């Protein structure tokens, strides 16, 4: 029989998890915006507004220590991060455009060399997805092959139902286990009517066709036209659930410190700058071209996937109004 959970019990579930020492991450209000953040109790969960930043930080933090070093009595030593100490995590209330992203990113973090910082967090996280009943003008998940009720990437999936509460569906073994473990908080209910999900307006795009154009138009005036406004602020990359570029830097002195891996963006002017001063991507249109190419061609060439879930965040964030959805729609008609 289908399961449901009331809003109170969902909060109770969070309280219980937190009490047990699980890290619970979910949409939480921080001043003027909602962000995915660690919750200290169930009442903090805010499922109304779309979180401003993506949920990728749960697996791929903005900045994380990857080792520490110390020089003592002339001897240098390097100490690993104890990945076993990474907490068991439940990501709750992830929108479909967020829960689908790790499934895309797994490919890059696990091909040839395994990035255990990412993969260990993935392994230790249960994703409770949430059907999206509120979108806005920037949403276009349906255009790139996802949907407001896609369960892709969720272990457990919640859909708001008429009269309050959520229907609950276990999508993976992890989800089934969670459902079984906290069974007392869920009810059996034969008939529920889910609330209507959001309806992004953009029609489904032919991604193969977009890629086909990109395959042959590295040199095109299109890039100059569309990216001349881009100021290279990098907001679009930082806010994106699927962007994965990073930098590695040391913090500390010669005697003691740590090495960190942190987000970077191909839109930044110095991103590809050589030590010699030569920069292969010298002007902003070349950088913006890389952004589109990486998302809709290169990643597909390498891993067979598109690096965009249509969350619309980069559109909302761009200070100069560059609209990636409109751009790829335009490309699809070329």
């Amino acid at each position: 029989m289908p399961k449901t959970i009331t809003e109170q019990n969902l909060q109770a579930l969070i309280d219980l998890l937190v009490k047990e020492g699980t890290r619970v991450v979910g949409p939480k209000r921080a001043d003027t915006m909602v962000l995915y953040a660690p919750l200290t109790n169930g009442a903090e969960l805010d499922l109304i507004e779309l979180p401003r930043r993506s949920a990728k930080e749960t697996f791929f933090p903005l900045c994380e220590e990857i080792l520490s070093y110390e020089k003592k009595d002339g001897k240098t030593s390097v100490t690993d991060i104890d990945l076993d100490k990474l907490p068991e995590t439940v990501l709750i209330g992830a929108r479909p455009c967020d829960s689908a992203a790790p499934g895309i990113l797994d490919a890059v973090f696990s091909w040839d060399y395994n990035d255990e910082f990412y993969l260990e967090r993935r392994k230790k996280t249960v994703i409770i997805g949430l059907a999206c009943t509120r979108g806005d003008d920037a949403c276009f998940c349906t255009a790139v092959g996802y949907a407001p009720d896609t369960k892709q990437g969720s272990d457990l999936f919640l859909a708001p139902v008429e009269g309050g509460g959520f229907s609950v569906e276990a999508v993976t073994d992890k989800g089934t286990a969670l459902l079984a473990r906290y069974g007392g908080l869920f009810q059996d209910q034969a008939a529920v009517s889910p609330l209507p999900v959001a309806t992004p307006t953009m029609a489904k795009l032919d991604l193969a066709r977009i890629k086909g154009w990109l395959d042959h138009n590295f040199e095109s005036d299109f890039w100059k036209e569309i990216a001349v406004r881009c100021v290279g602020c990098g907001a679009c990359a930082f806010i994106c659930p699927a962007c994965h570029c990073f930098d590695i830097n040391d913090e500390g002195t010669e005697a003691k410190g740590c090495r960190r891996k942190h987000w970077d963006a191909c839109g930044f002017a110095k991103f590809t700058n050589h030590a010699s001063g030569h920069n292969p991507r010298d002007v902003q249109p070349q950088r913006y071209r890389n952004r589109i190419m990486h998302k809709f061609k290169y990643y597909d060439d390498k891993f067979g996937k598109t690096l965009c879930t249509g969350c619309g965040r980069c559109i909302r964030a761009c200070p100069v109004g560059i609209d990636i959805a409109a751009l790829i729609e335009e490309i699809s008609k070329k």
Partner: protein
Amino acid sequence: MCIPDKNIYKPYLATIENIIDETPDVRTFRLVFQDEAVRDSFSFRSGQFAEYSAFGYGESTFCIASSPTRKGYIECCFRSVGRVTEALRRLEIGDTLGVRGPYGNSFPIEALYGRNLVFVAGGIALPPLRTLIWNCLDQRDKFGEITIVYGARTEDDLVYKHELKEWQERSDVNLVKTVDPGGNSDTWDGRVGFVPTILEEAAPKSDNCVALVCGPPIMIKFTLPVLEKLGFSDENIITTLENRMKCGLGKCGRCNVGNVYVCKDGPVFTAKQVKEMPQEF
């Protein structure tokens, strides 16, 4: 390859065993891994690169410049131009640095057996070829004629001066060294002229020959047409691409030229492959 570590970003520790100043700002380190197990198991192929770290400053990417035929150590060669390379330069014999690698593809040395080889290098770009040159010279009977055309702006800017002398004295190597016009002293015993011009004059035969070319983009640009004129096909011209790198592991998204990840698919490419890439390097 080496002992796999769970943390792919963790470097091995190495001690600087020797330092050679190649030019006023280019320095060679000879490095010995501190961990005996790493020392025994670390193996690489000519053409591969590594990430070298000065703790407190970060990592920098250079090729492994020594030959895998020389066991027990590796060498790197770098110009001090930034924060990390300047910090590396401040290190002294006996100091510790970090090394991650080896990464990337390598020169197809087995495919070069029985062929004549022409090495063409400019300035600080000799190290990526030097690993292969010694690799070939250490198994000299496997290769045909070996010609090395190497030039720099001035005599001072030539790297591996001691080895150039050694190659010059060997009867089984044809070394053609040159400096740009105006870059020579009165005692200079080499040629004067830009690398592409000198290569054209030296006119190595392209029959059964592979050209291995490394240099600044401008040198490569003028060298390829010369090689073409001499009859080299694009498949028989091998070069290395340099791009800014961070991870070396195909993850950080920094080094791509089109859909080619220089750190994974390269750094060694044929001229044919390079021509097929978007011209953004």
